[in-house]
């Protein structure tokens, strides 16, 4: 494990208070719990995105994202931002605007190259004249060759795909990596200051920001990334990345030592994501060895939640695994790791990389080691690489970049703006007393969270032993929910003599009516993991709702709100179990279908003449789609949006919300 010498870094201070100049205003006010006018003891729902990349991320930067962290915050609060591609004069050819502001945001730029980008862009910094920086800057030119751009991107980014024992900073960072460490410290200070500048410290509490970054380790491009979230401006000296700490357990140890235990007011947690692209290793120990008690305790303590869904697909469950679950097929992308996603090479995901498998493994580990390392609560996010937090609208999708289609070069995308297997991503919702850092951070830590595939479906879940069967008739359901049990993310301790735990789930629609609520139960039976889906605890799966594929207009009735009290009919008080709710909307068009409809794509008389994606690598490398296409024969290219007529993905989806599970802990 490499340590950065404080002597090397010198007296670097993160100037995090609002007025950082000596003559400026005094440091921002306190952030004590209960300072907001909208404080609700029974907690409110707040919407956010904790996975956002801006031009500070190397991959986004290389893809032509020019918008900054400040732009991302503006976007989250409702302002429009510019999108690539830019023309020669530097004018954007596209814009984006969120339909409703978010309540909170954490920007999560990749930490690995924060310093690298700074070194390569600042002529006074040592390392600026290195060949790697020259190549990088050449790749930034308006008329750069896409192949050159890709080459320099791969050359540097591949460092994050080296085995942990071999990974290292780029050579441009100089002896001891000092150039990049020093520059990275400055950038990190800017990130923290940027979050401070937009955090609403008035008692209106309109917007909350968290400093954060993404630790982007991916040996062999098997995704092990996780986002690091800080509660406030008291942060670690550097955003420790894969080069500094090549194992997640090292990262947690360092965060524990230098943040949580440091006595500086620092607090932090990590958010797991994209286990679907890990080839099944996300839920293993980083060094591949057998789990230890120390490891499972650290993971349980430091990593309370996971993104169940984002731009690069869902990680809930894989169709055909464990049990029959018709709704497991939602936004499953047919790729096994980051490289196959980037290059669009079809490859089967590993079922061990899915959350439902991990929940079972976690319970088994708890049996042997006393702690469940995978007792995750649920979040969802965009993982946008265009500085557009919360940009989840299926009917306004412009591509999120990252592992998707970059859209850097002119002309603006004429066909789909992203690899069609990818999607707009989702949102995280928290139940918190107020929209402020302490309350939201605490909600995430206690897992009183849920994720949605984009719509702001509001769902509440409580588990207890003695709820009345007609709790849904009580206007004070929420008060009784807390009083008689635990909210989503909580753990129910055994209660002798009870017939079984009871769960109350209450949900309300966003723009589209709800169809039904499901409960997913997992448990250990004689040491074997079992899962069962209760497909309709309330609502109506056969309500006849559909969508007009010519207009994308939803058809049929649904429910504005749904509520149900459900008791487990097969409860065994001796076995560990978890229960989570899935709230399902009526069917709607997927983004690909919206775009075909919006373009008035006529399958009888197609209007486009060439497939840009296939023959222009800068527009995306749809390898399997392009296999049959001969780009040397332009007269015989297939029509660009033949995919509108023969879609490779489901044209209709059912958006949803997933609650954090409530866990049952049998008597020891």
């Amino acid at each position, binding site marked *: 494990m490499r340590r950065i010498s404080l002597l090397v870094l010198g007296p670097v201070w993160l100037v995090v208070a609002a007025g950082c*100049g000596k003559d400026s205003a005094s440091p921002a006010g306190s952030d004590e719990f209960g300072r907001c006018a*909208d404080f609700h003891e029974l907690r409110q*729902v707040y919407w956010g995105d904790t996975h956002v990349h801006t031009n500070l991320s190397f991959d986004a930067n290389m893809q032509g994202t020019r918008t900054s962290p400040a732009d991302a915050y503006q976007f989250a609060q409702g302002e429009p931002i510019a999108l690539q591609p830019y023309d020669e004069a*530097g004018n954007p050819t596209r814009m984006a605007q969120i339909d409703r502001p978010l309540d909170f945001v954490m920007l999560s730029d990749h930490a690995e190259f924060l310093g690298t980008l700074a070194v390569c862009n600042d002529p006074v910094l040592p390392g600026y004249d290195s060949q790697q920086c020259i190549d990088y800057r050449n790749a930034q030119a308006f008329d750069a060759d896409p192949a050159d751009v890709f080459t320099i991107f791969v050359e540097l980014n591949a460092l994050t795909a080296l085995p942990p024992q071999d990974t290292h900073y780029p050579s441009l960072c100089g002896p001891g990596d000092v150039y990049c460490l020093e520059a990275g410290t400055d950038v990190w200070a800017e990130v923290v200051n940027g979050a401070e500048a937009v955090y*609403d*410290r*008035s008692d209106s509490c309109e917007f909350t920001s968290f400093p954060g970054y993404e630790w982007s380790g991916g040996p062999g491009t098997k995704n092990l990334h996780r986002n690091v979230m800080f509660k406030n401006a008291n942060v670690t000296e550097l955003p420790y990345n894969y080069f500094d700490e090549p194992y997640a357990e090292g990262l947690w140890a360092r965060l524990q030592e230098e943040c949580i235990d440091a006595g500086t007011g620092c607090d932090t947690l990590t958010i797991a994501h994209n286990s679907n692209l890990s080839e099944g290793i996300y839920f293993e120990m980083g060094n591949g060895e057998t789990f230890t008690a120390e490891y499972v305790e650290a993971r349980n303590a430091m990593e309370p939640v996971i993104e169940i869904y984002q731009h690069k697909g869902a990680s809930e469950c894989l169709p055909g695994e464990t049990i029959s679950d018709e709704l497991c097929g939602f936004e499953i992308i047919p790729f096994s790791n980051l490289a196959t996603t980037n290059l669009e090479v079809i490859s089967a995901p590993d079922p061990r990389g899915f959350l439902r498998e991990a929940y079972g493994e976690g319970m088994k580990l708890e049996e042997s080691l006393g702690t469940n390392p995978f007792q995750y609560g649920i979040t969802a996010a965009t993982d946008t690489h265009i500085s557009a937090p919360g940009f989840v609208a299926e009917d306004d999708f412009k591509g999120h970049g990252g592992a998707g289609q970059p859209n850097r070069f002119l002309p603006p995308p004429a066909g789909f703006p992203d690899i069609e297997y990818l999607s707009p991503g989702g949102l995280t919702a928290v139940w918190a007393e107020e929209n402020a850092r302490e309350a939201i951070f605490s909600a995430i830590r206690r897992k009183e969270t849920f994720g949605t595939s984009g719509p702001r479906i509001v769902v509440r879940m409580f588990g207890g032993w003695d709820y009345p069967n007609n709790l849904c008739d009580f*206007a004070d359901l929420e008060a009784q929910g807390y009083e008689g049990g635990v909210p989503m993310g909580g753990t129910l301790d055994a209660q002798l003599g009870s017939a079984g735990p009871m769960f109350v789930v209450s949900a*309300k629609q966003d723009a589209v009516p709800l169809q039904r609520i499901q409960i997913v139960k997992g448990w250990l039976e004689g040491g074997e993991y079992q899962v069962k889906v209760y497909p309709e605890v309330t609502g109506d799966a056969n309500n006849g709702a559909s969508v007009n594929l010519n207009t994308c207009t939803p058809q049929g009735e649904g429910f*504005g709100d749904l509520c149900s009290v459900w008791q487990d009919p097969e409860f065994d008080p001796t076995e560990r179990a978890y229960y989570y709710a899935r709230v399902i909307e009526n069917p709607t068009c997927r983004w690909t279908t919206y775009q075909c409809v919006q373009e008035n794509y006529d399958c009888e008389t197609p209007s486009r003449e060439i497939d840009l994606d296939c023959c222009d690598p800068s527009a995306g490398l749809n390898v399997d789609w392009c296999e049959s296409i001969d780009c040397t024969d332009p007269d015989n290219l297939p029509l660009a949006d033949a995919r509108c007529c023969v879609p490779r993905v489901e044209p209709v989806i059912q958006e949803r919300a997933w609650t954090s599970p409530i866990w049952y802990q049998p008597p020891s």
Partner: protein
Amino acid sequence: MLRTLLHFFLIGGLLFGAKVFIEGRRVEGPEITVRVSMDATQGDVENAVRDAILLNEARRYGWDKRDPIVFTHLVRNMRFIDPDSIDGDLALYERALEMNMQAHDPVVRSRLLYRAGEALAYVPEDRMPTRDELEAHLRAHGDRFEREGRVRFQQVFLSRSKRGDALSADASAMREQLSTLGERPPKGLGDPLPGLGPEHSATPSKIKEDYGVELAQVVEEAVTGVWRGPATSVYGLHFVKVIDQDAAYVPALDIIAAEVRADRLRELRAELRKERLDALRGAYTVHIERVP
């Protein structure tokens, strides 16, 4: 980086301009000719003059020769013109300069204007806003920092999904029941809806976002202490009784200092850009030539 740019830039043109401005005397400055089309408007002319000055300044400080993007681009142009050349990059670059290619290439032009714009907006340490300036800024632009007033109200909700055809009749009965409550809270009345407790506090715009225009209007217009409704939302029917309303307000500087500072800096950058550009403009002798 900006600090470095400033060293290269403005030291000549800006200080020169400032000297002219302060001393109020005529000093021989750079002289340029700007060509515009015959039908160019005054705004077009001003933009053309601004760009010409900035490009000239950029060249005075050699950015067209030192900027890596400019270098690469000009070399690439030369290799396109002369693909068989065996000259090295430097030689090609010098030939491009001899041909004055940097003056006409749109990419080079765009790059140089960008760098010049960034340098113009640089905020030196001694211009960083003081607390007094921030206070003045907050006073002058209170509207930018104003917070919407909140409304605190009691509510009773009747679910359309749950009550179906009985909703209307249930609403009539509920109205009767509420009229007899007096000052008592509506404890236990109505249906639950996640996130909407018996007593609620929110801004009208948030109510509108969550429950629609009708309920927001009823809340915003309601007389304090009187049950109103039902208002319709996608979820069903709502009765509300406003308890109190806060007026819109501007938080104190101590609370929102970071926000005010960021806003002031944005403004300051724009001011500095204009101030420096004006100084440069004053220092230049510009001839306008209208061409067909």
